[in-house]
């Protein structure tokens, strides 16, 4: 039972990160219909910015994360401004190829600056809390709490602010949004910025638990795609729920079956979805 | 007595709660023009989508020459002799007019990858035949002079004629035309009317969806009226012209108010 609880908490922590990454991906997809392959690189960059702030500038963890959020929001926004905006009206294939270009640019840049070495990120939250016989590192608690706070913040942003409501309106009906006078370009820019910020939070939170390296975003972005396809491309609740479910399934499978099996779950799910329902499980059919 | 070319029985196409087509019976006999009319959103295009296999109906069946084809894929139905055009005139963009029409003949050819690589006689004969037929279809539709132009550069009326040529090149038994005269002027419309008459005279049955009543009345042997998915009237142009339920449907029932 303790083992189960232990793994449950670990799964929730991992799921928090999965959900944050999937959220950024799904927001951008909802608004622009671009599957942003470079999103994993934003997550990687977010982790590196925090790493630099912590190690080179001696910033506190919270400050490091805040800086990372700002930098990545700018980076995400400039992706839209410099690249995707210019591909408006072209086929989705064009945007996808551009996204791949951005992905390899960012990974290549990280490789040039920091090299392929795995970096350990220090955290002040290295204590352990014991609860019902379960040992939880403070960092994991921080991950879970910060993710929930971020998600609530995102929810309020989407539902309570004009910007957020325009994002939702545009995700539902781009032409309609244009007709009712929404500045679709500004909304697209903001959506990318928000998606960058979410990736930064996720990258900064996970960094001390895992290692930081240039390709760290490659696997998680695929998992995020699986989550987003399962939850319905563009769906916010789908991304959150899917993130936690996949992470729990993976941790449990890793504990009770085998690690190799846990890694296959995401791909297995993807195949399953395609075979059963290519448009996504929770999405309305065409 | 032989079965009609197209027979549709109790056809229903429901999208969630919306019954876009609701229990429709309809026959299209050989050699005639049958028009399907009705106000916007009546389910006319959806009816075509079901008949041509793009939608699998919720209820009922579709039969061609007495053979049940309900739920077959669009390319299978096409190969059974049903050609169609789309409401928003569809052509293959980024291709020239002749190339557009050639592909319409592909369903009658057998050349495969091996033929292509070995450049067999079959491939060469078929390719030449497709080209010849495509030019004939373009000539029939009166647009042969445009054969070398990219489809993006030709006027709307010509596009509509090319779309008809593309449908005809397969030598269908039944041609479904979805608003062929939308967005063109009076004169062009009468030209198109003449073309459609020529199509029927060549032995192809036509099922026509159109809002332009003059054209419908001029051409049709029979008219079927849909409203909110349901068939509300059927008859000759004269019968339909004076039918109060039809007038009601078009006026949205406001005459009762």
């Amino acid at each position: 039972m303790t083992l189960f609880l232990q793994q449950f908490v670990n799964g929730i922590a991992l799921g928090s990160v999965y959900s944050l990454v999937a959220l950024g991906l799904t927001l951008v997809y909802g608004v622009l219909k671009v599957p942003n392959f470079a999103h994993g690189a934003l997550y990687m960059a977010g982790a590196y910015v925090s790493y630099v702030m912590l190690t080179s500038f001696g910033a506190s963890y919270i400050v490091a994360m805040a800086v990372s959020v700002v930098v990545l929001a700018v980076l995400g926004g400039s992706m839209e401004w410099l690249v995707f905006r210019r591909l408006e009206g072209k086929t989705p294939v064009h945007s996808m190829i551009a996204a791949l270009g951005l992905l390899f640019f960012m990974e290549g840049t990280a490789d040039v600056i920091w090299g392929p070495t795995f970096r350990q990120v220090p955290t002040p939250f290295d204590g352990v809390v014991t609860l019902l016989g379960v040992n939880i590192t403070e960092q994991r608690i921080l991950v879970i709490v910060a993710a929930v706070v971020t998600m609530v913040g995102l929810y309020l942003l989407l539902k309570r602010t004009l910007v957020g409501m325009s994002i939702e309106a545009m995700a539902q009906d781009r032409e309609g949004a244009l007709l009712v006078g929404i500045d679709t370009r500004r909304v697209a820019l903001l959506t990318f910025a928000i998606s960058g910020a979410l990736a930064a939070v996720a990258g900064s939170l996970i960094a001390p638990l895992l290692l930081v390296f240039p390709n760290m975003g490659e696997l998680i972005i695929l998992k995020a795609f699986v989550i987003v396809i399962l939850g319905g491309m563009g769906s916010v609740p789908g991304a959150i729920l899917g993130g936690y479910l996949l992470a729990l399934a993976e941790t449990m499978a890793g504990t009770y079956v085998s690690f190799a099996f846990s890694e296959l779950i995401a791909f297995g799910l993807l195949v399953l979805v395609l075979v059963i329902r290519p448009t996504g499980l929770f999405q309305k059919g065409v | 007595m032989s079965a009609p070319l197209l027979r549709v029985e109790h056809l229903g196409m429901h999208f969630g709660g919306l019954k876009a087509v609701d229990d429709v019976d309809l026959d299209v006999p050989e050699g005639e023009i049958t028009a399907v009319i009705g106000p916007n959103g009546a389910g006319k295009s959806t009816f075509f989508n079901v008949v041509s296999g793009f939608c699998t109906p919720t209820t009922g069946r579709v039969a061609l020459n007495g053979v049940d084809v309900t739920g077959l894929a669009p390319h299978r139905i096409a190969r059974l002799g049903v050609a169609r055009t789309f409401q928003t005139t569809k052509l293959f963009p980024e291709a020239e007019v002749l190339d557009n029409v050639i592909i319409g003949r592909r369903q009658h050819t057998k050349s495969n990858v091996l033929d292509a690589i070995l450049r067999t006689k079959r491939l060469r004969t078929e390719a030449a035949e497709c080209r010849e037929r495509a030019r004939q279809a373009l000539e029939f539709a009166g647009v042969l002079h445009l054969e070398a132009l990219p489809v993006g550069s030709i006027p709307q009326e010509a596009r509509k004629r090319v779309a008809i040529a593309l449908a005809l090149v397969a030598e269908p038994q039944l041609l479904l035309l979805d608003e062929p005269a939308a967005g063109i002027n009076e004169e062009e419309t009468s030209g198109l009317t003449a073309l459609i008459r020529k199509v029927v005279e060549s032995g192809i049955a036509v099922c026509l969806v159109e809002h332009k009543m003059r054209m419908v009345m001029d051409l049709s042997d029979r008219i079927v009226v849909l409203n909110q998915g349901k068939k509300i009237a059927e008859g000759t142009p004269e019968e339909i012209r004076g039918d109060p339920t039809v007038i009601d449907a078009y006026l949205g029932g406001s005459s009762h108010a």
Partner: protein
Amino acid sequence: MRLPPARGVALSLLLLTAILFPLLVDNPYLVSVVITAYVTAIAVYGLDVMLGYTGELSLAQGGFFGIGGYSAGILMATYEVSFWIALPAAVVMTAALGYVIGLAALRTRGDYFAIFTLAVGVMIVIIIERWEGVTGGTDGLIGIPPPSSIGPLRFDSLTAQYYLVLFFLVLTIYVVWSLVNSLVGRTFVAVRNSEELARAVGIDAGKTHQLSFVISAALAGLGGALYAVFLGYIGPAMGGVQMTFMMLVYLMIGGVASLAGPLVGTLLVTGLMQFLQAFAEYQMMALGPILVVVIIFFPKGLAGLAKLLPERWRR
């Protein structure tokens, strides 16, 4: 379809240059660079069949390249099968796998298809890395012998290998050319231009996609197998997503849906990268933005530019 005479002459000249190249250039290193470019170009032609002519972005192309390479490599190094059997076996194997993967992947189109094939590509690398007993894991597979001789023809010299690879490249270009200029190629393009209309005129869009995907995988398999044999080595990176990305860069720079595009792009970029060896570190950092610029400003690549030029001159 007959070629216009001017193009025929140009082609013959090109072929002659390619044939004379190893005799004129007495630089084994350069010859081996060109060999690498040729084998990669074969796989890039495969990518073009799917992306350029059928309109779907397959991100498993690197994975298929790896499968071709490992199939040939394992057969030849581990089981000592002759190259002349291993090569076709590798191509068939890759094509068969492409067929099976296509059954699932082609239930989707567009972005979903790209995502799914990306996942397949990543999975292929993971399997290669984990299946150590067979593939040599992350170390890769070494000791793949050169092709055995047939009669008096020996393939242990670099020049002989160059001609063998050139033969397969020309064969690939011929196959792609004859497909594109046939009713089959027209069918691919019709499905790319409008799948809905293609179905309405009686084309089985599913089968067409499946065929294109299998051809695309087979060419990747051929390229990969030749690559493994001529390097004598294959590692997991050759089946990786980065490999797919490189192929995409070659294709986009050369120009999609053009017969010369894949070869020109591959030769040009691999050639430049050799000249700029000193900056190898910056390769990905530079290629990423180049790809983005190409996609935004020259989506038809060099082939597209070349088509524009004569029109300007005529004025």
